[in-house]
């Protein structure tokens, strides 16, 4: 039931959005999210956007992951916890 892939909002009308999921056009309701805008990414579940995606947090977690992986190679076991 969960679409784990984030979808891009391409159009909004009456609390309904047209979204682009990996190139496929679909519709979803915006009733459950606060002020979503065209161009933003949302997570969609059963036809409803349930969250906007925080791209900054996404890139931060990745950076921490990479850093931690490198640190582990050097230190052998210790790492920082990303995302807390």
């Amino acid at each position, binding site marked *: *039931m*969960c679409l*784990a*892939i*984030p979808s*891009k909002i391409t159009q909004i009308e009456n609390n309904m959005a047209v979204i*682009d999921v*990996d*190139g496929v056009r679909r519709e*979803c*309701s915006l*009733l*459950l*999210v*606060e002020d979503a805008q065209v161009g933003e*990414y949302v*997570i969609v*579940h*059963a*036809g*409803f956007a*349930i*969250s906007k*995606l*925080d*791209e900054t*947090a*996404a*890139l*931060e*977690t*990745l950076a921490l*992951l*990479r850093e*931690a*992986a490198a640190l*582990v*190679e050097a230190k*052998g*076991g210790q*790492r920082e*916890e*990303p*995302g*807390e």
Partner: protein
Amino acid sequence: MTIKHIEEYRDAELARQLAEQIKRTSRRPVRLMEVCGTHTVSIFRSGIRSLLPETVSLLSGPGCPVCVTDQAEIDAFIEVSKQPEVIVATFGDLMRVPGSTSSLQAERAEGRDIRVVYSTMDALAIARNHPEKQVVFLGVGFETTAPTIAAAILSAAAARLDNFSVLAAHKTVPQALDALMSVEDVRIDGFILPGHVSVIIGLNAYRPFFDRHRIPCVVAGFEPADILQAIVSLIEQIESGKARLVNGYPRAVTEAGNRKAQEILARVFEPADACWRGIGLIPSSGLRIRAAYAAHDAGRRFHLNAVEAGPPKGCACGEILTGKKTPPECALYKKVCTPMDPVGPCMVSSEGTCAAYYRYHY
């Protein structure tokens, strides 16, 4: 078009490095439970199991909505489809779940009007187009799905769509985790918490559970790197003896969760006791439609004969949902029970553990 970071979360080299960390840091054998069915599927699809050392066992928990739906609830769904002048609208996963004597699919073959929808909005549209019929939506799912059903009920109430109602069997995750910890013979060393339930309820919703049990917990996203990162964190917590509640999915999950969805959910539903397949009655782990929306509550509208039937004979879904057994340990697995001819819901649902094992040749 996808966002740039998605590709990076799927990067095989990053996955390899994370798996390497797990191998290096994991010493004692651990049993980790992924609570969410979407995680189960993602773990199989991405081949994460083959990357993990022998010390790490992954168990699938009670996070497939169809799988935890009690037999009596399935029977009630079938019962309502037999009522005169009713159109049943449902998510596709429920169609083939065997009830005590029938299934929705079998009822449809008998001529009942049962329609598969993608969203509650589709069900509302059916109600609008068929004012002469009663449209009943079958509501299963956790805190991710329940707000979408609540939103539909609010829309129906606002539009005076009196022929739309919901037969609700929703369940809530933190209460189930609590109950799991007290099931006999269950041994779990850490939880990979569901990403999209957490989007709605927020990290804070797990705090009471975490404070009571002090067991390592990480909320995870659904890409391979997300899941591996969660395992890295869990192993680290277990090895160091310091349990934490970690948000490993901060791009979607916040401390407080989605307040708008929580507010809509709370306006329509109130907590109620619920029966879970394989676990039994868990206090306050379900959601009941509030009296103010009784007109849209199919349970109140149709007086259904609740028959207490018990699970299909020989099906080990209950033990599988609590991590006590894996599907190959069920005597019926692959012999009698297949996705073409399923005995229990764990083989029916696309998120079910038995179906995932079957599909990926375990």
